[in-house]
């Protein structure tokens, strides 16, 4: 569904992505892991069009993701940001129904937003709250509700458990897994939390020194030497 070929991106003299090749199939859940500063977020921003790659191709459904294809792509994906990125000036339901309000009445958009909030475990009383009134975990869940509000084909998760305690992190992981299975959406998760990888990933790719150093099934990662550092194992 999404294929990345030879993606390169530099900032000044610093090369962040140096020929990334990656593929994720329809309905698959791929986790991209890597240490801080290895370019995971830059990779995500290049896919989303928030950063322009210096070189390489990003293909979506077999076609290059260029200026013409990007608007359709943008309409078919959802994104959960690391800090939820809810709009401070809008109540929660308007955040969740942001895209819906552009093509339907407020009443209808609000109804759908409340259903999506319920799906992530937030009651209807949350709908009229402002983002500043939410706890970190609630904001993350509201962000997740916004990501799935328009029934996307692809969902991106940027560090979904960062800043959450282990219990809330497990809850978010469970929600993400449930939603991905239920909707059949393709999921790409950027994380360095191995519990998240085990909970939500089908496949995992290690980004190291600007390129993919290893990729394979989540079930195989325990035996992958390049992942030993992440899994807390001694390398021999």
């Amino acid at each position, binding site marked *: 569904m999404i294929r990345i070929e030879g993606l390169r991106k530099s900032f000044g003299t610093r090369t962040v992505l140096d020929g990334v090749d990656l593929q994720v199939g329809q309905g698959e859940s791929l986790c991209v892991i890597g240490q801080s500063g290895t370019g995971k977020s830059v990779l995500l*921003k290049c896919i*989303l*069009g*928030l950063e322009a790659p210096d070189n390489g191709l990003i293909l979506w459904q077999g076609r290059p993701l260029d200026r013409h294809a990007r*608007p359709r792509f*943008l*309409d078919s*994906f959802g*994104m959960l*940001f*690391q*800090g939820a*990125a*809810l*709009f*401070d000036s809008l109540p929660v339901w308007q955040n969740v129904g*942001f*895209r819906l309000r*552009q093509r339907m009445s407020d009443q209808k958009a609000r109804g759908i937003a409340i259903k999506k909030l319920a799906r992530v475990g937030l009651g209807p009383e949350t709908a009229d709250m402002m983002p500043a009134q939410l706890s970190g975990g609630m904001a993350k869940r509201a962000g997740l509700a*916004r990501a799935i509000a328009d029934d996307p084909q692809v969902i991106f998760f940027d560090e979904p458990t960062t800043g959450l305690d282990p219990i809330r992190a497990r809850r978010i992981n469970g929600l993400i897994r449930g939603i991905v299975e239920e909707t059949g959406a393709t999921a790409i998760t950027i994380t360095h939390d191995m519990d998240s990888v085990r909970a939500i990933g089908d496949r995992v790719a290690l980004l190291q020194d600007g390129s993919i150093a290893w990729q394979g099934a989540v079930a195989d990662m325990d035996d992958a030497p390049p992942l030993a550092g992440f899994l807390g194992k001694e390398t021999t």
Partner: protein
Amino acid sequence: MNPVRLSGRATLRGLRGVGAVALFTLRGLFHLRPFRPRLLAAQIFQIGWLSLPVVALTALFTGAALALQIHSGGARFQASDVVPAIVAIGMVRELGPVLGGLMVAARVASSIAAEIGTMKVTEQIDALVTLSTDPIGWLVTPRLWAAMLTVPVLVGVGDIIGIMGGWLVGTQSLGFNSAAYLANSWAYLESWDVISGLIKGAAFGLIVAVSGCWYGMASGRGAEGVGRATKSAVVAAAVGILAANFILTGLFFE
């Protein structure tokens, strides 16, 4: 390095900056589809209505001080009678627009830069893009138009309050007759004095909003980045207003 090369580079960088701001302003002004009346109304309230107290107080005290200054200065050559006319012309042509613009710059440019800068560092602007919404149309366009529409109104209100400040001092402490003061204020005012001040107000509103939006969008990371963006926005808006005032005054009255 060669000083000629250095100054050439600095000039080119400056010109690139001016070009980028000009393109940003044009994009902001003409990104009108979809038209978002609710966002525009919210910004008119924020920029216009909430700036009214500070602009009104500034105008009141400026008009009052101007009356005292002209009376004391005019007394040196027996010209104290010109107080109403000079206060009116000075407020409407110059002090109303400039001081009103500077007060709006202090209040609004900083708040726009801080708001947009915070949105940038918390990824809310990226979120707008991923929700198929152009941040220019959503954030910049309503602020630019709201400032251009409301600052002239603020200037008009400030002009009236400034003249009334002069009237208050003139009648209460300088011994002017109330009706004569007001009659003299209006007698020497020409419609172009008022219109030019309102045009200046629109230009200053645009400068304030562009400064706030530009520095907010260019904000660096973290609280320090937002703080620097806020400071730069206010400085750029204030200097821009004073420079534009000089140019517009030259164009209108020379």
